[in-house]
């Protein structure tokens, strides 16, 4: 699985929805994610992709849609 697929599968697990249907949906405004979900996302990124994102790096406005998250993570993997 590439990074994008992994991130999407993590997000699908966390939200209980298929996020790939709308990659620009705002996960927080739609109630799919909250702070709890954000932390789980960070932990999953760490365990599944080996990407370390400290909590202070998590600025909500930069992580609020599936597309933004994928871009962020891709940047961190390289």
């Amino acid at each position: 699985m590439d990074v994008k697929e992994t991130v999407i599968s993590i997000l699908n697990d966390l939200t209980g929805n298929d996020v790939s249907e709308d990659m620009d949906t705002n996960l927080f405004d739609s109630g799919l994610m909250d702070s709890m979900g954000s932390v789980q996302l960070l932990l999953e990124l760490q365990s599944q992709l080996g990407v370390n994102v400290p909590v202070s790096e998590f600025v909500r406005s930069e992580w609020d849609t599936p597309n933004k998250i994928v871009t962020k993570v891709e940047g961190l993997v390289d």
Partner: protein
Amino acid sequence: MINLEPYGNPQYFVYLLIGLIPLMIGLYHGHRWRWYQSAVSLVFIFLMFDSQKWQQGVALIGFVIWEWLMVGGYMAYRKKANNRWIFYGAFLLSIVPLLFVKITPAINPGHTSLFGFLGISYLTFRSVGMIMEMRDGIIKEFHPMLFLEFLLFMPTISSGPIDRYRRWLDDYQKVPDREKYVGMIEKAVHYIFLGFMYKFLLAYLFGTMLVPKLETLTLRYGGTGFSWPLVGVMYAWSMYLFFDFAGYSLFAVAISYLMGIETPMNFNQPFRSHNLKDFWNRWHMTLSFWFRDFVFMRLVFAMMKNKIFKSRVTVSNVAYIFNMLIMGFWHGVTWYYIAYGLLHGVGLVVNDWWLRFKKKHRESIPHNKLTEAFAIFLTFNFVCFSFLLFSGFLSKLWLGHY
């Protein structure tokens, strides 16, 4: 000597504007005159803490030196090593002044700590947040001067909104282009007049005219249990709290805008919230987001990483209660502030349970305009009740003192 309470009366804005005009002309022409900004800020800070408030002024100076040493010292250390105990130490030392200020009146009723000054909690948030971001490796440099300019950023010094160092620095190190700056000035003017209406009209109407009358009525005729005047106190005081604080926050944001800094907003129509979680995303936002990012999320992260509880739900419930309790204690070590925090912690736990339940039974639970109106009504009343607790009036009613 004259003493000027920040945003205390409309005249204050005239003085501020006179002081800020040169800075605004500079920004309009693409320059930020840092030395002028610092000088005019120091004059206004001096006027907040001079004369009969000189002791607070001395406490402020001592506090700034202390935090400068803590944050600067920790950065110097963090560049070389990253021991967790050193971090805990730096964290603790940086909140020591605030702890003294909060605990002294609890141990010694009627006394205030010599370390206290108006705004100490807000300044502590700024520097503690920096230490935590240094630990995470997100802040990599300590600039002795920029730190002071951030810590003492004048418009927000007394009661927030609580800005973050990196966000603030981004704004401070550039000048908004002319079109944007003109837009910011327009917004600032709008916010100032809205703030006038909130703070000098509505907060005055509720806080100074209505609340004392309703309180007297309750104390005289209401007894210690439920009474209609007490319900009146609850609503009137809640309105007072909102208009007073939202008005003040609008002023602080507006003056920041005039100085070319986009300080974040503190309120977003909180009484339209659909549930308690929604409420904390709209009420005193910079405080609740600070707690979310620096307390709640870190706690959840640590608990999940170390697998302290099996269930995710338990983790989030423990974190909610802890987070809101800390927030309660931060308001003051008094039973009604702590009860206020606990009430909101429990409220968030119940709210989360309901949201999970609703998600599971999406098909069978009706959702329409009426249920939405009911949700807003319920949230509003829960919040107002918590504010009645927060106001301390119940302490007066039941124990005879605040």
